């Protein structure tokens, strides 16, 4: 069994690397073959001649395309994405500075979503066939069909503008400067800014765990051991939570790791609604300003986080459920 998991994880790891390599190559081609100046990927016309020369040699821009490709891969491995056109700073520094904000937002909203989803799923399964279940499922379907940015706009209008309970934009109030990440995470101001974007995301994300939990529960509730438990006189509550829910939770936990990967790509919209200084907002701003190196760097980092999280999900999947085995999933 141990060996199978190792092979499974090894294959998955190689596949993750392959995915990253393909993404990197697509980006290379996209940015080099873009219409107009082939140097556009790294050199802004307003850079000084000296800067231009330096970048030319750093990225081998005066070399033929295949050489450029090798230089590009080498630089990426060392974390060198070039310099931002507008912020005049290394792209690597800029994206690494906003990465934590994106991760905090994603994790907070996912944890929130999974707490709501798991508890909601248990309740809905328990209340099966009632009007309450109908209403709950309908509400969840609605949140999954509503555009996230629209839900964000409504929450903004209510809580930030009408009631003025919460800030409408950013991750800190004007004038507040955090000296470290720890300082940020322990500041009340930061979390006040977190509430609206995290709630909006959680409203969207809770649907998957809720529906998954509900259908797992319904399936397990038909198992013999539940009927047995009922005969043995266990209370319904105890049966639901201690026995059924515990067994239904496993696939939900695996789905969560996968969810991190998906929502990193998806919270681009939310970051822009709430002016959250994360990777998604950096990407959108860079693309609208034609800041190619920054756009490329932000996109790559989002892709790396997503691929890593997918790998992590596979790892959990393999470890928690060895039955699945390597062959079935890799070919499905």
């Amino acid at each position, binding site marked *: 069994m141990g060996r199978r998991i190792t092979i499974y994880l090894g294959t998955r790891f190689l596949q993750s690397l392959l995915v990253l390599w393909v993404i990197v190559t697509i980006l290379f081609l*996209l940015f080099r073959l873009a219409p107009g100046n082939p140097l556009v990927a790294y050199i802004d016309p307003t850079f000084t001649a000296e800067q231009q020369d330096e970048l030319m040699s750093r990225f081998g821009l005066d070399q033929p395309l295949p050489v450029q490709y090798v230089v590009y891969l080498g630089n990426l491995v060392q974390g060198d994405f070039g310099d931002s056109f507008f912020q005049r700073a290394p792209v690597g520094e800029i994206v690494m500075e906003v990465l934590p904000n994106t991760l905090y937002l994603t994790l907070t909203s996912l944890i929130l979503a999974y707490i709501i989803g798991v508890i909601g799923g248990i309740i809905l399964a328990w209340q099966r066939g009632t009007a309450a279940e109908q209403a709950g499922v309908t509400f969840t379907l609605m949140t999954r*069909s509503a*555009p996230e940015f629209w839900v964000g706009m409504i929450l903004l209008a209510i809580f930030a503008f009408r009631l003025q309970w919460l800030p409408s934009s950013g991750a800190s109030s004007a004038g507040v400067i955090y000296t470290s990440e720890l300082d940020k995470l322990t500041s009340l101001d930061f979390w006040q800014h977190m509430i609206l974007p995290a709630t909006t995301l959680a409203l969207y994300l809770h649907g998957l765990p809720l529906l998954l939990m509900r259908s797992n529960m319904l399936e397990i509730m038909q198992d013999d051991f539940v009927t047995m438990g009922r005969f043995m006189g266990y209370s319904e509550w105890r049966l639901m939570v201690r026995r059924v829910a515990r067994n239904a939770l496993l696939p939900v936990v695996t789905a969560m790791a996968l969810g991190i990967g998906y929502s990193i790509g*998806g919270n*681009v*919209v939310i970051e822009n609604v709430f002016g959250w200084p994360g990777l998604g907002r950096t990407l959108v701003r860079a*693309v609208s300003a034609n800041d190619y190196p920054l756009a490329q760097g932000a996109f790559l980092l*989002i892709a790396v986080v997503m691929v890593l999280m997918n790998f992590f999900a596979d790892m959990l999947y393999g470890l928690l459920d060895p039955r699945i085995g390597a062959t079935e999933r890799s070919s499905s």
Partner: protein
Amino acid sequence: MLNRAEVHEEVITAPQPQRRGGSALVQALRVVGEVLQRDRLALIGTIIYIFFILIAIFAPVIAPYGPLEVIEEEGIWLANEEPSARFPLGTTNLGRDIFSQLIYGTRTALLVGFSAAIAVAFTGTLVGLIAGYYGGWIDRGLMRLADVAFGIPFLPFIIVLVAFVEPSIWNIVAAMALLLWRDTGRVIRSQVLVVKEKAFVNAAKLSGASNWRIIFLYIAPSILPLSFLYGSLAIGWAIMTEASVSFLGFGDPDVVSWGFMLQDAFLSQAMSREAWYWIIPPGIAIMLTVMAGFFIGRGFEEVLFPRLRRQ
């Protein structure tokens, strides 16, 4: 997402293969009819679509103004008007009629939704058929490609791609088709693996039918309902994606869509003015179309995969 793929592995009733070629479409339509008869939600979803399709067709008749028309009175823009008999949903900050934009937005949404769905279902079905039928390195190559498509962050990729080409709804549709075939492709492939072992496929092989003939006349008809299922799910995805891309400012600047309207509302601070008549309707419209896609998809699933019906 995780469990949908698994569920499909255990397809219980493969639809009856159509032996006389040419009427694959008729048979698939028969399944659609069956779905509508059996499933109430799928019926509701279909009614929602028919409603929006009618609005889209008759948009010029229903909408009192053009979607980008600036309404003036004695040289003054009628901007930020509250709802009235003349402007049922008020006007935008540039004096455009919101109700007319909503009506015309239906056209964009359906155009994007249906064309993306067709592109996704077509590509996915083709990939699935070829990978499943031929197997070997072709299969492995195509499935690794699907892995890559799964690993690419969807919305960021579309944003980056759209930045390099002219912002137009067709480029957004093309970008979606480039990534979203992956789900359909995988599921169709696993279904093809089952179907190709069936006796009638072997009989066709023995009687000397060519590979393409077997794929399109013998195997394709029995997997077509699955293509419909994934197509109907893609409609909602596509409408939502177009809305997000437009909201972020990378949409077609000349085409009014619901996402375009919400971006307008957002940028002109409609929230702080509590202009609910501007914010709420486009969101509801998006929600209804996406939900209708879910409903129809679910109806298909229940007919195609009866195991689920117990729940």
